[in-house]
């Protein structure tokens, strides 16, 4: 099912435009930031690695979340949109195989989005700013090697975070009549979560929102910080969200009459 999902999704113009758009935003951002090359306050304070980390900050949570929610909703709902779901069921494809295939397709598409992001950020940053140690105002510089590993780890962490919104969109895509409705609800959840995250008075609610933990990858770029504990809790919340949402979607799908 994974191969089928990937064939149907990755050969789609909409998916290619999403990845292309992501790459275009990074290139445009690189060009507009080009004036920082060579650095304010000393030589080479802004490097390819700074640009990549800053890009994560710019894209996460809403922009990258939107991209992944879009991919999740179409992976979840396109069979229903096209009417091909009934022909998959009579092949026969079980609900469990369908949901599992869609989940792994989301993982691959999400990984591809991160590869596009990290790849284009590093190459654009390299061309515009060059390869230097990672500098941050008021902090000791990280070596390029340490910062590069940090970028990869941050990419992995952000991908796990994005999977939590992606799986919500996927689940809604499976359950709603159209993928557009699934995308709208997933985005409303994303934007609502970002807004609520700013309310300190709603702390008890905020701590269970996956979005609350998304910016924690920045700890990886603090000198002397391992970032492990903070990221561990963040990863646990994302994993719990994924398990609960996917499990609930499967349970609803299993109870529902397919023709309903």
């Amino acid at each position, binding site marked *: *099912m994974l*191969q*089928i999902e990937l*064939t*149907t999704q990755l*050969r*789609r*113009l909409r998916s290619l435009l999403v990845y292309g758009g992501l790459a275009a935003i990074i290139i445009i951002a690189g060009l507009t930031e080009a004036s920082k090359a060579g650095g304010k306050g000393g030589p080479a304070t802004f490097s390819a690695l700074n640009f990549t980390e800053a890009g994560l900050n710019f894209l996460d949570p809403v922009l990258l979340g939107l991209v992944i929610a879009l991919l999740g909703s179409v992976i979840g709902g*396109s069979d229903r949109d*096209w*009417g*091909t779901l*009934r*022909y*998959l*069921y*009579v*092949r*026969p*494809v*079980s*609900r469990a*195989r369908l949901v599992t295939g869609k989940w792994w397709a989301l993982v691959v598409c999400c990984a591809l989005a991160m590869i596009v992001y990290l790849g284009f950020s590093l190459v654009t940053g390299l061309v515009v700013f060059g390869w230097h140690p990672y500098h941050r105002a008021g902090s000791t510089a990280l070596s390029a090697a340490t910062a590069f590993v940090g970028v990869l780890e941050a990419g992995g962490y952000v991908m796990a975070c994005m999977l939590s919104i992606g799986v919500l969109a996927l689940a809604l895509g499976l359950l709603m009549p159209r993928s557009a409705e699934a995308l709208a609800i997933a985005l409303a959840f994303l934007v609502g979560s970002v807004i609520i995250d700013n309310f300190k008075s709603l702390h008890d609610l905020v701590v269970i929102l996956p979005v609350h933990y998304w910016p924690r990858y920045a700890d990886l770029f603090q000198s002397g910080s391992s970032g492990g504990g903070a990221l561990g809790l963040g990863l646990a919340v994302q994993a719990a969200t994924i398990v609960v949402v996917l499990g609930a979607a499967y349970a609803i799908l299993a109870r529902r*009459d*397919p*023709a*309903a």
Partner: protein
Amino acid sequence: MSDTVAVAAHELSKSYGRHRAIEDVSFEVRRGQICGLLGPNGAGKTSTMRVLVGLSRPDHGTAQLLGEPSQLAATVLARVGVAIDGPAFVPHLSGHRNLELLWRAGKRRWPPPALEPSLELAGLGDALDRKVKSYSMGMRQRLMLAQALMGAPEVLILDEPANGLDPGEVRKLREHLRRLAADGTAVLISSHLLAEIEMLATHCVVLKEGTLVTAGKLEDLLGTGAYEFEVEDAGRAEEALRAMDGVKSVETRGDRLIVYAPDRTATELNQALVMAGVGVKAVRSTRSLEDVFLGLVERNSAAN
């Protein structure tokens, strides 16, 4: 083998909310039979087919395919070819790629055993390598038939397969289905084209408002109790026949009367007309499926 029950519906009932789609529908289709599933719009034909292939869960009753219970994604469906609720494909992929993906979805090696004859029937030629979104309705329909037939299924469940096909294509489909049935395939086919079903089917199931009106051999349905009278005074003849016990329906078409009276012989009916002073020019003991179908539906409505 030819006597094996391939499709069995036993007291199937299904409602969607407060709408009763089918109620207590029972029938069987055996290997080698071509069974036409007939009924007016909203009779429950597609609902019945959905339940049979597991796309809908019955509220009551059981559905079996090739002796195994049918439910969503049941393994027995791998031996069944299905075309239901119209064609549906991934629009940005080619026809060929769509067929391949659907086949591989069932965890099977490409190509399927009956790909070539199915593609020949579809007659799409080079268009098979074009994206499906550029296809006409008829082309999509033919591609859908190819996907139902490509696996050499033991059972075929086809919902309005002739929709969008031109007369030549309908004829090709009819001949193809006849060959498959002769080789032991059970075919359940719903259609509004009664003349087509009359030419193709060996058996017939008639539904109306979700309930079974009749089921059986087509020749029995067409031959028993169905008569066409050519008379001199159609008005008087109709009056005389309607007054007779055992006459279920009388339909006047100019100087012809289509009479459905399963408990009466042609001689008895002829005698009644003569007694009423109506000159009878000719009597035929068969009707078209259309006559039978309309008669049955009308009778069923009157009974309700």
